[in-house]
């Protein structure tokens, strides 16, 4: 499964937003990756996510494979919207 999101957090996907996202996906069983500018990292790795340096307005692709992938996307979308990090696109 794949979904695209636009990052709306004013500081980009750094620090707090990145931490929220990583915290949200870590409990899931499936593997999950975040792709930005053709580079993919493990979305469960805070340092990987921050090293991406996603700027505000940046478009990222999140892909997940595994039994609970669908539920994971629900959670991700929820976190994105409720914390003002980004929106589906």
């Amino acid at each position, binding site marked *: 499964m794949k979904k695209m999101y636009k990052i709306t957090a*004013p*500081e980009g996907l*750094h*620090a*707090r937003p990145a*931490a929220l996202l*990583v*915290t949200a996906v*870590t409990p899931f069983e499936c593997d999950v990756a975040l792709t930005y500018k053709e580079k993919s*990292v*493990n979305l*469960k*790795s*805070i*340092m*990987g996510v*921050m*090293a991406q*340096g996603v700027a505000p307005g940046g478009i990222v692709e999140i892909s997940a494979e595994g039994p609970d992938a669908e539920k994971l996307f629900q959670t991700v979308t929820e976190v994105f919207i409720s914390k003002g990090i980004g929106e589906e696109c």
Partner: protein
Amino acid sequence: MLEIQGIAVSDGISFAKAYCLKDPDLSFEKVTVLDVQEELERFKAAMGKAKKELQEIYEIAQGKFGADKAAIFAAHLLVIEDPEMIVAIKSKILAGENAEYALDEVASMYIEMFEGIDNIYMQERVADIRDVSKRVLGHLLGIEMVDINRLSSEVIIVAEDLTPSMTAMLDTKYVKGFITDIGGKTSHSAILARTLEIPAVVGTKNATQVIQQETLIILDGTNGKIIVNPTSEVLSFYKQLHTQHITACEELLQYRSLASFSADGCAVEIAGNIGKPEDVDMILNAGGDGVGLFRTEFLYMGRQELPSEEEQFLAYKSVLEKMQGKPTIVRTLDIGGDKHLSYLKLPAEMNPFLGYRAIRISLTQQDIFRVQLRALLRAGAYGHLKIMFPMIATLDEFLRAKAILLEEQQHLKSNGYLIAENVEIGIMIEIPSAAIIADIFAKEVDFFSIGTNDLIQYTLAADRMNENVSYLYQPYHPAVLRLIKNVIDAAHQQGKWVGMCGEMAADEIAIPILLGLGLNEFSMSASSILKTRAHIAKLSKQQSMLHIERILLLSTTDEVKEYVQRHLISS
């Protein structure tokens, strides 16, 4: 037994074991391991211990300081749980590297990568990674790491210096005082010690080198003395002194509910300085007549973005409500100099104290200033608010700042907000130029508040943080006294009042002079309020006035001290 002398910055005596905060030796060798499984187990065990510690710290910090200040430890937990980092380290161990070396390699790789990204958040993450990898490394090497917020018995902290974030974590239940190698009377840690009302001695130069972990020490914050491993005679002598100090404090308590008057019946105001809304309680406990300086920097520091208008409004409102109609003077943002905000991206400067700071930033980055003013004016509806601007050098700066304030006032009013009416607007007198043309300012402002720490620093051109020139920090220097006289006279001629919110306002020698000069308000740390009220109650203002002319003709600090002691205090 060993004695160390430092600078006395916060009164009181305490006895406890030393708790040295120094970076432990975490050096290690690179070796090839033969049993990689065993090495992996060792690594896992160290990670487990570090993680457990971080979780504990996080929970303690959350309970003690709230989720906001604890967030840094949540970030540390994410770092230690990072699956990519763990995999990278494990694969290095599997290739025969020892755990210490593998950890250091991977952590350094991330640090290097993040340092290459030009973003302030990344710099903070670098600090997080360093902290976490040090913690794990410590466990690998079997070295106990110190945690200032995991204390469980009474200690006296010994450190090279205390950073603001470290001091924010101090718990006075266990921390009975602190000793630092560097710093002076006005350094942040010193001010903090007085706010927390714990004894402190700073500027000892080598305390961290001579005091061993866990040794018993006596900390005499009143005289700036530290005694390491005291003999039983010395210990009992100090215990007696301690009792006397407590008795003296209890005697002062009778002044709590008294108004502030000199012996000859002249009224003054004795107010307190605060840096956080919680500090108000200490001012009220000491029976302060008001808040003479509310520093607002706390709202802006230790975070990643500017505080919202609502957040500021609630903070100011809580203080104004607690003060129940007693005057509360709020100083607008005084950032810059030695206080930085990472998210404002202020450029590094050669002379930060002479650079882009305080009102200079407010007038340039007006969006920040206007939000603060709106929050203040709205909060003003809930108490007796006065506003002052820091670091005013020219009349133009004041007029511009005031115009912005009036604009925001008008704006809020037309939007139907409940706001403070007729707020007194004043300026800090910290820059000699403002002190010299106080007569011009006096026609425009409602009041002056003399900030002596900066005024002295600027008048004598001596960096107050630089130990090599600390002898130039002279509150009784005739130039300083004459400037203060000029300011007070100019204000009184226009029917305005003058306060002082620097350290000098609580100085035993300075007080009779200031009283004689006609200072209206003395504002200080909560812990000095009662002492000052008791001191002033024994002084005659008339008597002091008679001596002012003579004092202003004295040529050195020592002469002033001696004169005041002989003619004004003992009489």
